[in-house]
């Protein structure tokens, strides 16, 4: 790299060439004031606050936008520079309202700060012209006040360059310029997704959050923590006043680079919501009453001891939680394995990526995202299959759009024309359940056109020949017929995918939630192996893990067949290790998976269940069956933040503290173990899950003591090879990606470099097998289910935010206009939809972005989609077929 010499404020430095002046001054800790500069964006040089003097240049230059060249002598705070900055500030004030006293931004406004720093004498200096604009409050979460806008352009550029949306723009020109949604109309006319990333970068009070809580920045504290919603694991600061979270601000750096989505940024009202559980509740005569912890604990321990005596440990089952910390999940499975004595522990991962864990374990040896989130931007081909990334992993979706802007090609396979399909190089609108047909047909093209990576196949894989048989005859025409898309598009997609040097596949529930889910995943592995696209930087297989800590809950052994770190319960050495560490005898039989636990309850085999942070009454398929199963239990403990639909069936409800009230770690989708930190005191008498579980363990006579989460991490790291090198002191600033082999190991950015976890990559022949329940005369429509950006799962958390409920108020069903015409239903009609298992009501949303005779319903609402879904299971991994079932439209209501 070419080096250049610079002299900055008299100091000589030698630095690599190619950056703008401001980047070098940053290295020297010189503070240059900026309004329009953001290192993530293309420099505009618009505000002129950052001007510096460069010897030999006849005028001041904007340090943020001017490249430094060899031999330059730069002065950042000379008299001339200070004067110029002062003048810029005075001019910025020229048309700015003198409203600091009543401005929400007071105390966190750069204009204010710099005016003080640069000693502006009086405000305003010029009084010739003031702006006259209306406040635009069309967004539910924030408003734009163009009078306070200094036109730095950060909001516009962040929306365009980072969020990939362009919802905001400048209108008019000159001094009349203002920032707005198109036509200065409401945000409805724009593609704004309310991510709030524009608000977060606004240096003044021009973009302000609508908030009921008034606060001044100096009255608040800030705590860096991890988002409790999806698996991206965004880092942000909780801003707290009087034990109340009043705002959330994104953190720079890994993994979210200062971005958030609407949930992370705005959907925090659940934390201090009045509906939070404040004491334990005990059900008496069908009614809940408040109880003390002692009462609740003694009732629970009594029941556990009694039932265990009568029916043995096999009558117990526990649901760990992808919402709580690693340490809490570790303790939860320890409670079940070491204290109660059963492996019947599972959690929502069963409904989610069970097929990934199984399918990738078989083919590669490890069932996690192979690459890092940061690598998305380095992809040259992005193949998105069965993931609605911009809605379900929004920040990763934004990175995909950034990659696209850099020239990456996009392939989308999804029955719905999702956001990323617009402007994609190929969009394959396939029928739900036909992934294997598509992938086999693509591989057929890749094989016959010689686009596969022969040397990679030779050196790094096995079973190629046998696999070849399975695709050789599977022509694109056959694939197109089954999938309901064009053969030519399949060819095009195949060629694009095979042509990428840094091609990555991103998938989620569209692949996994099928009775053939494991096979779908294997098929994904096949195509990546065929093209040599895994085990490299920027190329790989990336199952996007859903929940904030679903990766961690699995890592921690919240599964019936493994101890922490995927160590098999039936492996004698492993068993011995844990028996020694926990000082108990352990069961070597694989426990029951979630669907079988519920079936067990239904069939009277499971008597006692302990559900921590999960809401199966809404989230599991075939709600009617779930309810009956839970009713049938002898005793149910539910530990949650709220009285959920599931909690209604409990005998005891324990109030847990939310993520804002405790310390611990979450492991995000890229295997990064990140900290959450206590920002407020627990609400009411609630306790962190980690405390509750340990207290129960102690009461049950196990000598657990009460460890802090940091101590628990130390214990689990000793027993879990992939977490071996992790300790709290190492992840204080940035989290580490497992495997972290020892206390010096830097973590693992991408998996399978040089060698797969299982040695060689295994090709597996996969035949296309249709979903279990297909449409017929009686139930002629295919229902697929999933999510929407604004809500999260069973809406226990997002549903506590008024604005979110206004945006997505009720259950709905997406229908193609032709299908709608067939049933004579119109947009926003309320209709009844039924399947063989039940019936629900939904508002009609007519859209051309879904195939004919296919309908989509989000599963967020109680007694909604899961009244209809099929509980047919994948026989290898027991994931239910949540993505395909047959339904009919009954009638308008």
């Amino acid at each position, binding site marked *: 790299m070419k080096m250049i010499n610079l002299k900055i404020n008299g100091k000589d430095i030698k630095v690599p060439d190619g950056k703008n002046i401001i980047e070098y001054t940053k290295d020297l800790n010189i503070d240059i004031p900026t309004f329009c500069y953001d290192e993530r964006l293309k420099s505009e040089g618009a505000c002129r*606050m950052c001007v510096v003097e460069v010897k030999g240049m006849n005028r001041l230059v904007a340090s943020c936008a001017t490249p430094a060249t060899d031999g330059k002598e730069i002065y950042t705070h000379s008299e001339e520079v200070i004067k110029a900055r002062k003048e810029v500030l005075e001019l910025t004030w*020229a048309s700015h309202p003198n409203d600091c006293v009543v401005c929400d931004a007071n105390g966190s406004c750069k204009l204010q700060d710099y005016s003080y720093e640069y000693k502006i004498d009086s405000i305003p200096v*010029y009084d010739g012209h003031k702006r006259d604009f209306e406040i635009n409050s069309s967004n539910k979460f924030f408003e734009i006040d163009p009078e306070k806008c*200094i036109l730095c352009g950060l909001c516009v550029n962040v929306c365009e360059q980072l969020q990939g949306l362009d919802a905001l723009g400048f209108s008019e020109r000159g*001094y009349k310029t203002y920032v707005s949604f198109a036509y200065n109309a409401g945000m409805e006319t724009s593609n704004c997704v309310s991510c709030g990333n524009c608000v977060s970068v606004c240096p003044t009070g021009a973009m302000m959050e609508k908030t009921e809580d008034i606060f001044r920045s100096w009255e608040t504290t800030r705590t860096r923590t991890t988002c409790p919603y999806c698996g991206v694991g965004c880092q942000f600061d909780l801003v707290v006043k009087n034990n109340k979270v009043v705002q959330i601000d994104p953190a720079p750096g890994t993994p979210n680079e200062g971005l958030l989505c609407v949930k992370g940024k705005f959907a925090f009202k659940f934390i201090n919501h009045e509906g939070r559980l404040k004491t334990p509740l005990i059900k008496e005569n069908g009614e809940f009453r408040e109880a003390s912890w002692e009462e609740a604990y003694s009732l629970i321990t009594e029941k556990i001891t009694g039932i265990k005596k009568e029916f043995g440990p096999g009558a117990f089952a526990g649901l760990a939680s992808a919402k709580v910390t690693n340490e809490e999940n570790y303790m939860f499975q320890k409670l079940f394995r070491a204290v109660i004595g059963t492996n019947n522990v599972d959690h929502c991962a069963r409904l989610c990526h069970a097929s990934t864990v199984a399918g990738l374990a078989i083919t590669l040896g490890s069932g996690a995202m192979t690459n890092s989130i940061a690598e998305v931007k380095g992809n040259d081909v992005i193949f998105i299959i069965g993931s609605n990334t911009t809605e379900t992993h929004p920040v990763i979706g934004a990175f995909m759009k950034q990659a696209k802007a850099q020239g990456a090609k996009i392939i989308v396979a999804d029955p719905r024309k999702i956001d990323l399909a617009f402007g994609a190089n190929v969009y394959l609108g396939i029928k739900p359940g036909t992934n294997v047909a598509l992938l086999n047909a693509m591989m057929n093209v890749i094989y016959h056109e010689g686009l596969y990576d022969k040397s990679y196949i030779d050196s790094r894989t096995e079973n190629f020949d046998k696999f070849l048989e399975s695709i050789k005859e599977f022509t694109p025409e056959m694939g197109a017929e089954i999938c309901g898309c064009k053969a030519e598009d399949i060819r095009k997609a195949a060629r694009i995918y095979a042509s990428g040097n840094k091609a990555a596949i991103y998938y989620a529930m569209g692949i996994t939630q099928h009775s053939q889910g494991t096979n779908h995943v294997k098929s994904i592995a096949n195509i990546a192996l065929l093209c040599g696209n895994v085990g490299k930087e920027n190329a790989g297989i990336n199952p996007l893990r859903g929940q904030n800590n679903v990766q961690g809950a699995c890592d921690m052994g919240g599964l019936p067949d493994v101890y922490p770190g995927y160590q098999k319960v039936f492996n004698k050495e492993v068993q011995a290790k844990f028996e020694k560490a926990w000082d108990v005898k352990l069961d070597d039989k694989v426990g029951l998976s979630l669907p079988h636990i519920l079936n067990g309850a239904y069939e009277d085999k499971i008597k006692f269940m302990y559900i921590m942070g999960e809401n199966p009454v809404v989230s599991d398929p075939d709600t009617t069956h779930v309810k009956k199963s839970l009713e049938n239990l002898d005793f149910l403990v539910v530990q949650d933040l709220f009285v959920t639909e599931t909690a209604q069936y409990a005998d005891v409800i324990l109030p847990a503290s939310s993520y804002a009230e405790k310390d611990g770690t979450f492991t995000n989708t890229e295997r990064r173990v990140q900290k959450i930190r206590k920002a407020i005191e627990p609400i009411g008498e609630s306790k962190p899950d980690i405390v509750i579980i340990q207290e129960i363990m102690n009461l049950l006579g196990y000598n657990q003591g009460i460890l802090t989460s940091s101590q628990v991490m130390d214990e689990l790291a000793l027993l879990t090879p992939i977490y071996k090198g992790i300790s709290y002191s190492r992840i204080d600033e940035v989290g580490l990606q497992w495997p972290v082999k020892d206390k010096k190991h830097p973590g693992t950015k991408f998996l399978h470099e040089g060698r797969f976890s299982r040695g060689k990559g295994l090709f597996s022949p996969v035949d296309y097998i249709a979903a279990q329940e297909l449409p017929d005369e009686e139930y002629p429509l295919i229902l697929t289910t999933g999510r929407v950006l604004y809500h999260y799962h069973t809406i226990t958390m997002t549903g506590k935010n008024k604005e979110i409920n206004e945006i997505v108020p009720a259950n709905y069903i997406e229908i193609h206009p032709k299908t709608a015409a067939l049933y004579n239903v119109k947009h926003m009609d309320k209709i009844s939809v039924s399947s063989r298992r039940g019936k629900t009501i939904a508002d009609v949303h007519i859209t051309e972005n879904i195939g004919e005779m296919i309908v989509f319903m989000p599963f967020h609402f109680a007694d909604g989609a899961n009244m209809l879904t099929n509980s047919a299971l994948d026989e290898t991994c027991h994931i239910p077929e949540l993505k395909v079932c047959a339904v009919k439209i009954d009638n308008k209501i």
Partner: protein
Amino acid sequence: MNRKALEKIKNDTIKLDPDLFEKKVKTHEKEIRVVLQNCDIIDPENINHYIVNNGYFGIHNAVTSMSQEDVIKEVIDSGLRGRGGGGFPTGKKWNFAYKNENETKYIICNADEGDPGAFMDRSILEKDPHSVLEGMMIAGYAIGAQTGFIYVRAEYPLAAQRLQIAIDAAREINILGENIFDSGFNFDIEIRLGAGAFVCGEETALIASIEGYRGMARNKPPYPASNGLYGKPTIINNVETLANIAQIILKGSKWFRSFGTEASPGTKVFALAGKIKNAGLIEVPMGITLGEIINDIGHGVSNKRKFKAVLTGGPSGGCLTEAHLNEKVDFDNLVALGSMMGSGGMIVLDDHDCMVDIAKFFLDFSVDESCGKCTPCREGTIQLYKILEKITNGTGTKEDLDKLYTLSKAIKRTSLCGLGLTAPNPVLSTLEYFYDEYLAHVVDKKCPSSTCKELINEYIITDDCIGCTICAKRCPVDCISGERKELHIIDQEACIKCGECFASCNFDAIITL
């Protein structure tokens, strides 16, 4: 197409119309026509006419017998400086782009001619479009570009139309297109229309506009020569600059240097307008004096009024006064005098023109045309305008004059692009040369040239009135009465102070109080 064929067209055309180049356009003896040599002589829609006067022989010579370096050297040696206003040496600029290696480069002809009061480029485009195309081709060959764009001002539909005809004709005989003169050089040209934004004459804003964005300027460096249109090395030259090129290649740099001064060789086209008798387009050698232009070629101020000042450089320039009539007109000298060459507009003012009003006029323009991207220009120009408005409506103070000065300096210190950097020039220059006039406005509350309406109490007809009745006819409210050849009177009650009478009187018989 080859040399022979070109010669044939030339000869055939001459045969057809033997005196095509015999007729000369009448010009003043002090004028020299280089750039305008074909204007008003040839049929701009007939490519053969252009070829008669050795048109397209320049590009022919360049691609068949000169290397890229040769061409650049010839242009450097000629000393040609950009006629778009900045006066940057053209050859030097080309050399930057030539040295920036890239498969794709662009040539852009800046035909946005935004200076309100100048029309040199328009005339060239409408009357001799091929000379611009040929200049672009030579530039393209020199730097290694294959595509050219002409960004034409939306207000010039005829220019765009003639250019399109010219491009089509050149394509037709394969002068534009692939493998030009069998040299392997490919070049084609597309027209892009502006849409009414003066700032798009600024090169980075122009690029943004072609790229389909708001015409907002971009920070320099990086300069377009390294990082221009679509991020590729790009040369932007003015119409008149390009119209000089073919002749420099044909006749050599020495010939070119025989006109003009050492530092500003060649000729310059000026658009003379305003209060001048002989208004119009002129082409003169650089270094000619202001007086020669105004008095000799322009025959002095019209209507027997007194010369007051001449505006050069449009909204970026300034004013020159009687004291400057002996000054040489070239790039550097005009800057030294606090004005600038600009693109060549020259507007003559007489003693009825108020300099504060003129400054306000230019600021109004800059306020309207500021793209709004950078703080100093966006906020500063409107504040300057508002202060000038105060001064012209009689509410200004002496402090306002100081404010004008410091604010002007502040805007110039930090603005992003040329528009903001030069927008205060009319204020600074009028402050320098006509400070007394400003003082009269703020101290005496008088407008010495009787322009600022708010400072006029009454229009009065003096004894000088000869009763020509013209004022009475002009008055929109019919409040002037008087018989022919008799003294007229204004009914002060009814007068709306529109100033029509004052402007109409050719005998200076109307005064203001």
